[in-house]
């Protein structure tokens, strides 16, 4: 025979009697009663999870009391309900979640531990509405959360090392391409010089290389030229490769990238360029992606900008001066080497408003 009441023990050790019909609305309690036969007396009271305090239990029982009435259950599809019941249910739910955030969080947590999904949904939605439209600072304040992201992470939370080997390979590829680009620039500027200076015939050059000239500088120059010419050839090949796998049709080795073997393809592309580059590049690593400015250069740039600013100020009409002095703070940040305060002020907007 089903007893009308069962015994529940909350996290603080207190035990209370609750109408069985209502308590059974919680799946966890239902299981305890039916599968384990618990709750029939004070001695075998059902131990509720840690997250359920007496106050929270009381709220949950109120919820169950309302919803276990036939026709109100969330299990009934909304279109099947008469409009009046639907509105009644909605109105109850809306009023139910009106409480301070702390209690709402406790309620969500408790409902989750009791496996009461409809209530978890209801409270989660309410929490979502609280979060929507707020800034990170406001959210932190409301939920008492720590501000433990570093400036770097806020700005570039993506510079962590990667675990996925495929993605690591892709990263390598990018790094390599950038290095190639830099190499090409450097070499091209060397080539330009070369073209201006060197008007000798191939025979002359060969005689240099073969040691006919005792000038050490000459020999060195010729060796460099030889190396540069080889580099130039290789880079021409590379650029052909690049053009073949160029901007409009990015194919690997002129073939379509097949999804079944994409990792192999990426490795293939890496190794092919690798053999071409054996002389040009010694090695490359992931740590190559570095956008920092060399401090000496930074100083030079800062001096140039300050100089420019001085010239700027002298040209502008008075009104402009006024405007500038009111924006003085911003201007100072522009000229400071690392502008951290600027970054901090605008960090949250940076990456996320792309």
């Amino acid at each position, binding site marked *: 025979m089903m007893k009308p009441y069962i015994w529940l023990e909350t996290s603080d050790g207190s035990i209370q009697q609750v109408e069985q019909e209502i308590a059974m609305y919680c799946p966890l309690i239902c299981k305890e009663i039916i599968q384990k036969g618990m709750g029939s007396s004070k001695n075998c009271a059902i131990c509720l999870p840690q997250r359920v305090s007496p106050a929270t239990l009381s709220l949950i029982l109120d919820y169950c009391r309302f919803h276990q009435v036939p026709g109100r259950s969330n299990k009934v599809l909304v279109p099947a309900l008469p409009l009046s019941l639907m509105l009644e249910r909605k109105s109850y739910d809306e009023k139910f979640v009106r409480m301070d955030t702390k209690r709402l969080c406790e309620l969500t947590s408790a409902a989750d531990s009791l496996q009461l999904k409809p209530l978890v949904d209801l409270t989660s939605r309410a929490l979502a509405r609280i979060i929507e439209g707020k800034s990170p600072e406001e959210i*932190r304040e409301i939920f*008492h*959360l720590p501000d433990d992201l570093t400036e770097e992470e806020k700005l570039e939370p993506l510079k962590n090392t990667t675990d996925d080997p495929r993605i690591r390979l892709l990263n390598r590829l990018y790094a390599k391409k950038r290095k190639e680009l830099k190499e090409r620039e450097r070499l091209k500027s060397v080539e330009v010089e070369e073209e201006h200076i060197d008007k000798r015939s191939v025979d002359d050059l060969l005689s240099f290389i073969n040691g006919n000239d005792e000038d050490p500088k000459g020999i060195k120059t010729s060796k460099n030229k030889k190396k540069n010419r080889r580099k130039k050839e290789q880079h021409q090949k590379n650029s052909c490769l690049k053009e073949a796998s160029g901007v409009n049709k990015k194919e690997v080795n002129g073939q379509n990238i097949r*999804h079944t073997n994409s990792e192999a393809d990426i490795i293939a592309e890496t190794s092919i360029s690798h053999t071409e580059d054996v002389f040009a590049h010694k090695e490359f690593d992931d740590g190559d992606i570095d956008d920092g400015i*060399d401090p000496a250069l930074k100083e030079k740039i800062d001096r140039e900008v300050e100089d420019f600013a001085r010239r700027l100020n002298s040209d502008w009409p008075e009104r402009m001066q006024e405007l500038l002095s009111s924006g003085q703070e911003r201007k100072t940040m522009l000229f400071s080497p690392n502008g951290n305060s600027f970054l901090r002020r605008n960090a949250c907007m940076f990456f996320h408003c792309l």
Partner: protein
Amino acid sequence: MQRMAYTFSFPEEVLEHVFSFIESQRDRNAISLVCKSWYEIERWCRRKVFVGNCYAVSPVMVIKRFPELRSIALKGKPHFADFNLVPEGWGGYVCPWIAAMACALPCLEEIRLKRMVITDESLELIAKSFKNFKVLVLTSCEGFTTDGLAAIAANCRNLKELDLQESEVDDLSGHWLSHFPDSYTSLVSLNISCLGNEVSLSALERLLGRCPNLRTLRLNRAVPLDRLPNLLRRCPQLVELGTGVYSTEMRPEVFSNLEAAFSECKQLKTLSGFWDVLPSYLPAVYPICSRLTSLNLSYAIIQSPDLIKLISQCPNLLRLWVLDYIEDAGLYNLAASCKDLRELRVFPSDPFGLEPNVALTEKGLVSVSEGCPRLQSVLYFCRQMSNAALHTIARNRPNMTRFRLCIIEPRTPDYLTLEPLDSGFGAIVEHCKDLQRLSLSGLLTDRVFEYIGTYGKKLEMLSVAFAGESDLGLHHVLSGCDNLRKLEIRDCPFGDKALLANAAKLETMRSLWMSSCSVSYGACKLLGQKMPRLNVEVIDERGPPDSRPDDCPVEKLYIYRTIAGPRLDMPGFVWTMEDDSSLRLE
């Protein structure tokens, strides 16, 4: 003092569950910045990401951070590409993204691209890599042919949406549509309005007939009007329809057939298409006009009286796109009939003509601003404007959020007073406190920019052409508009000073475009050196900027913030100003 987080007892799944109800990008971004644990939880359950500039971040970075992505949206070329200001081959290639995602995100379901270049190879890769692929939207894209579409049709068993809005497709043949297998039934939305060739109409009819969830169908011009009823009968549940050509020989049975087919579409709310309209066929849509909320007649050459007859039957219209044939008279009628109107776009029928060809003036816009209390979004091409009219519009509609006025002839003054239109636009920014987007035109001095800087606090996007007098103008905007994300400028006398003085501002914006202005190469170099997190792109078809003096102005300048460094796919006429001041010579 360490206080206990209210959510300390939450298992991760519960927080994830809370986050699952939060969809907007801004909110998701805010969540990820709250604290370390929320950042981690959020990134694992982020399903949808929007990248407003494909060069601002690398595909690998995005994938690494959001391993469970199902949906991605990317934008490529700057907006001014729509006006042919961005040379062919500038960039916006989506291939690296597709390759990376094919590799690492097999569960990807949705790809939405705008102003990007996508090849058939990429389309084939999409078709074969993503087993549950559902949505492909290519807006103003190019670089592909109907062969790529065939691959999508043949392989994407769960495809719901295929939308090629305004893309440039190399239309090799209409047979691609037949590649949808007979077993394929999941189509919800199909937009092929940009295709040139006729698709196989029998294949189309069969396709429509077996897809019960079809809601949106936008046909191309090549679909003849007399075939439309048969198509409609296969999908009477349509909500959005774009017709093909809207004329044929006038025959009573064709008309009645068409009218009957339209009447059966009880859910139809949006109409577009209407190429080459024969006015006597317009009444065929009258039976459904009362349900219409959106009407796009921007290709329809219909004169004002016929337009009036049509529009006066659409009292529930929320959005109207129309040619200036509507004239002031038609707009008065619109203001009287469509009280719920939210968005109006009036396009020029003859933008290059020297004399006005239609009786459309500022009065039409003023009357709509008076009669339509919910009007929020306006794009209006006209030939005359006055400060008085702008003041009236501003006072009538303080709820305006998007205001784009295009007075066709550059530097046109107030036609009544011959003064600049500074005060009129000033009134707009002052009264419309939630204004997010603004395009200027007409004769404008630095003063208008002072107003914009002072009042345009919510402004996110500003388009400027042939306006201003000095750097002061640009300075006002950059220093005053706190929420500015996109700024595009052409043919204005703005130079180095304002740009350099506000360099820090540029890192808070998505992008800045300046063409035919007075920004010198030297300033570009300086900016590139000083701001490592900006890509400063000089676009110059005259050859390497190094071959000219440093104080020579660059043709075009595109500056955008990025955490991916300089891009690797630039054509020969684009130079990125490097941080270490080495320059690429090509």
